[in-house]
């Protein structure tokens, strides 16, 4: 591992190049979706047999951002002209095959992983281990008990910005980094998501997302060395040359949520370093918060999915926060049950 990072001391743990690699992998992650209009709601004269639409959707995107594309497809291919005129996408909503309503304000990757873990608790799932997630599209009467009002893109953008600000607050105790951005830059984050443009998003996000800097003391060497061409370290306008100021290990807490099958969402403080000075890892975090599923001294009963990947227990929480978080700044850990020691997904 030679000097890839001219300004920082060469990091045994993570160079800016590998940080960028993981961020790009996260950004480019997609999930297959099958969208089918509820057959009872297909307008008369629709071309049945074509009413399924397949999308390889970006994990960091949101359902309202897919609506225009779906609407175009339905207008062009499935509906007749009268029906196409009558489309009211503000009444649209999506449901899973077993009746769970999909939320507008959750990133698609989270929706997918959450569905995966919910299936892990169902006794009979062995079929279609990783087929497309099937969404049933309803055209009217959204269930107001289960869905936030206003499914449009603007509401979604505000929810997204709200999550980003919360993540900022969790890390630093204030939201100065996000609110310090110019309005055009803040909008640029959402535009980056809409256009699915990595560079546009990260041009701004790199100013507010913690950088991976060398951890104090006993960090293990990286599992693989990445020989990519040198990339300059992210710009840190607030850092005054002190490399750790905006570092992943300097945050108060990493923005993390744990999702359990069918339901509860857990959130708690996740300091990057524990009280005894050791680094907070995924396994320490899960042992502490879900001791029955992840007993300290025995084989675990569950598995953890982050960005759709089985996360290794030795992953450091701070690193996850800097490299594998969603576009809204949050590390979403979906916990599913192991069956006979094997994750089903």
């Amino acid at each position: 591992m030679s000097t890839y990072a001219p300004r920082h001391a060469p990091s045994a743990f993570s160079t800016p190049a590998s940080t960028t690699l993981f961020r790009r992998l996260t950004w480019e992650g997609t999930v297959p979706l099958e969208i089918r209009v509820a057959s009872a709601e297909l307008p008369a004269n629709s071309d049945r047999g074509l009413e399924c639409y397949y999308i390889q959707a970006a994990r960091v995107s949101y359902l309202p951002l897919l609506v225009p594309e779906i609407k175009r497809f339905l207008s062009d291919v499935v509906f007749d002209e009268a029906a196409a005129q009558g489309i009211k996408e503000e009444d649209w909503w999506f449901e899973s095959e077993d009746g769970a309503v999909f939320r507008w304000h959750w990133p698609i990757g989270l929706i997918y992983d959450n569905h995966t873990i919910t299936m892990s608790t169902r006794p009979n799932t062995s079929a279609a281990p990783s087929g497309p997630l099937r969404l049933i599209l309803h055209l009217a009467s959204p269930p107001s008990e289960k869905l936030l009002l206003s499914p449009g893109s603007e509401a979604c953008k505000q929810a997204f910005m709200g999550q980003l600000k919360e993540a900022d607050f969790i890390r630093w105790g204030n939201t100065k980094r996000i609110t310090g951005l110019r309005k055009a830059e803040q909008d640029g984050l959402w535009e980056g998501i809409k256009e699915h443009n990595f560079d546009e998003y990260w041009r701004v996000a790199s100013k507010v997302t913690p950088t991976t800097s060398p951890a104090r003391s006993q960090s293990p060497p990286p599992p693989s060395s990445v020989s990519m061409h040198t990339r300059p370290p992210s710009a840190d306008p607030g850092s005054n040359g002190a490399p750790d100021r905006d570092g992943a290990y300097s945050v108060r807490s990493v923005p993390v949520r744990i999702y359990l099958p069918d339901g509860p969402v857990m959130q708690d403080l996740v300091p990057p370093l524990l009280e005894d000075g050791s680094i907070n890892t995924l396994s320490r975090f899960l042992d502490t918060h879900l001791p029955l599923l992840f007993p300290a001294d025995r084989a675990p009963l569950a598995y953890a999915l982050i960005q759709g990947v089985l996360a290794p227990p030795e992953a450091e929480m701070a690193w996850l926060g800097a490299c594998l978080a969603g576009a809204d700044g949050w590390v979403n850990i979906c916990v599913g049950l192991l069956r006979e020691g094997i994750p089903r997904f």
Partner: protein
Amino acid sequence: MARSVLLPHTLSGEKATDEQESQDEWEVVEENDENDASAAAPDVVASQQHVVFSPTFQVPAFYFTAHSASGAPLPLSEIVKLPLLRQHILAGTHSSGFALTAQESTFPLLSQGDHPVLGTPSWYLHPCHTAEAVTELLSESRTDGGSEEERLSRWIQTWFVILGQVVNLHSGTMAQ
């Protein structure tokens, strides 16, 4: 903490009904006998109110839902007319249909989110400035010391005072 409250509200042309949620709360049924000889009887809005700890901001936050007698959730335009929110707070805020934001504010004053415990959609008042406000008020009151329990009790009482600036906690009647 949770409770159910029936709020008087006048929507045009709807009759009042008596839908009462059952929560483990008090029962007071008070008629909204505002003048109004007109045909439209005042409607009753059922509001579930919760005080929930916000894990992000590490302070309590006030969450509520509001449904009309027919069971439909109230849109923001109707919610701001309820006696629940104090009018002076609403001045200077701008509504987008899904949130109420004060000028220059980082977070919306009132917006929707997942209820942290129930997971269902709920309106909530943003808790971000609460901690500062409580600390400020506590420091002025000059009561220090006491046991941890007394200290926490003062904290939450002060929190309710702050909340009371924004929300009229006495509006409406409790439902059984």
